[in-house]
Structures are given as structure tokens and as C-alpha cells.
């Protein structure tokens, strides 16, 4: 098919002359469902979009944090064998690793909890089931984040 035959109006020579021209433009058709000044104010925020974006941003950061963590705990310096109270005390003596673990805790928990929220929405069909499962999920998430944060901030190497 030759493209040079079609005119700007998209009407080829077979149909005859174009109906519209610069002086007589085609009417503008408003895109369906477009929000205008007249349409009612949206009652929903952009929560789902923010959640979608958060999954991607936190994912990129978690690649570094979690894979770095696994390298330190399972691969370097003797792997798991070295882990013990003294090892943790040595690591949390440094603010750098405290911040690392804190960030990893918050991002991984929020990322995972939001992912599980999607999974619940997908599979739990009854509204009541969804409500209970999400209640359980949010309770466990808040509890875990608070506990983990508390442990990092109150860690005491001389507990005994």
C-alpha cells in the first residue's frame, strides 16, 4: 500500500475530496470519560497508583539491601557458622548497619505486605474473608515492624 496517496485527513483519492481543511477543521471529539471542570470531584485518591510505584521503587532498593544482607550472612566470612550473639553485637555497634537493617526491615515489610494485599484481593472472593485476612495481615505487619525497630534501637551488647 502506498502511503503517499493518503492525505492529512486520512481520506484517500477513492473517496474524493477531503471534507476538512485548514479553514474548515474537523470537529474535536472529546476523549470519553475525560475529566472536565463539570465532572464531579473524584472521591478516590491515587492510592493504588502510589502503591504500584512504591512496589517498583522499593524493589530496586531491596535488591541491594537484601542481596547484600544474604552475602554477609550466608557467604562471606564462614557463612552461617559465624552467626551468634557476639556477631550481631559487632554489627549493630555500627550505625551504618543499624540504618541498613532498619531500612531493609521497613521496605521489605511494606513491600511484602502490599504484595500480600494484592494476593488477598485476587483470591479471597467473599468480602468478609477479605476483611479478616487483611486485618490479620495489617496486624502482623505493624507488629513485626514495631518489634524489629525496637530491637535495633534498644539492642544492648551487655545484656548479661
Amino acid at each position, binding site marked *: 500500500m502506498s502511503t503517499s496517496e493518503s492525505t492529512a485527513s486520512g481520506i484517500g483519492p477513492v473517496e474524493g475530496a477531503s471534507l476538512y481543511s485548514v479553514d474548515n477543521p474537523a470537529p474535536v471529539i472529546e476523549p470519553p470519560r475525560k475529566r472536565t471542570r463539570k465532572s464531579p470531584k473524584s472521591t478516590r485518591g491515587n492510592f493504588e497508583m502510589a502503591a504500584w510505584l512504591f512496589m517498583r521503587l522499593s524493589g530496586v532498593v531491596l535488591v541491594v539491601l537484601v542481596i547484600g544482607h544474604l552475602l554477609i550472612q550466608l557467604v562471606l566470612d564462614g557463612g552461617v557458622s559465624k552467626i551468634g550473639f557476639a556477631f550481631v553485637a559487632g554489627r549493630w555497634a555500627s550505625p551504618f548497619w543499624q540504618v541498613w537493617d532498619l531500612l531493609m526491615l521497613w521496605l521489605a515489610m511494606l513491600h511484602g505486605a502490599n504484595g*500480600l494485599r494484592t*494476593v488477598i484481593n485476587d483470591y479471597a472472593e467473599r468480602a468478609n474473608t477479605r476483611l479478616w485476612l487483611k486485618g490479620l495481615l495489617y496486624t502482623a505487619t505493624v507488629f*513485626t515492624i514495631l518489634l524489629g525497630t*525496637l530491637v535495633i534501637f534498644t539492642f544492648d551488647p551487655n545484656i548479661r
Partner: protein
Amino acid sequence: MPAGTLYRGREGMWSWVAHRVTGVLIFFFLFVHVLDTALVRVSPEAYDTVVATYKTPIVALLEYGLVAAILFHALNGLRVIAVDFWLQGARYQKQMLWTVVAVWVVLMIGALYPVLGHAVRELFGS
């Protein structure tokens, strides 16, 4: 149930299933992991006792599985991000999936000795 409505996708569907399964598994592990780490606030003995289970051969195998899950979820997550944000992402999604699988296999082979070495030594003597 109407017949023939079951969606049977190709690689893309299976990578999505694997991403979902690994994500849920990691979340459950993390919940337990924060609990076991919290034992450092109880006593050094309590912590060391529980961490000792992490060093047994059977749990070493579970750790290898956890590494497998995390590496797949991380690599495939980066692929999902590339599909969403890179203009050519959707066109190359299949090539990217096979790249993910290849990198995953290489890293899993590399993790064999560091993660399972001590278990093999314990089981068969060194």
C-alpha cells in the same frame, strides 16, 4: 463452570506465578526471621540456641531454597520494572526472562558451596 475458560499462558504466566509464590514465601520467612532476631533482647543464650538450628544440614537446604526464591524474585522483579518503564521493555520481555533464568542458574551454582558446603562437611566429615 463454563468449559474452556481456564487461562493457560506461556512463559509470561509462569514467571508471574513464580514471582507471586516466591514473594509470599519470603514474606513469611521475614516474619519468623524478625521474631528469631528479637531473641537478642532476651538473652545471648536464647539467641545462640535458636540460631544453632540455622546451622543444621536440613535448615541449610531450606536456606538454599530461600536464596533461590530471593534471587528469582529479585531478578524477575527487575525484569517487571524494565517492562514497565523501559520503552522497549515489552518487546524484549521474553529475552529478558531467559536472561533472568540464565543469571539465576549461574548464581545458584555459585551459591552451592558457600551455602551448603558446611552441611556437606558435617554430614560426610571433612
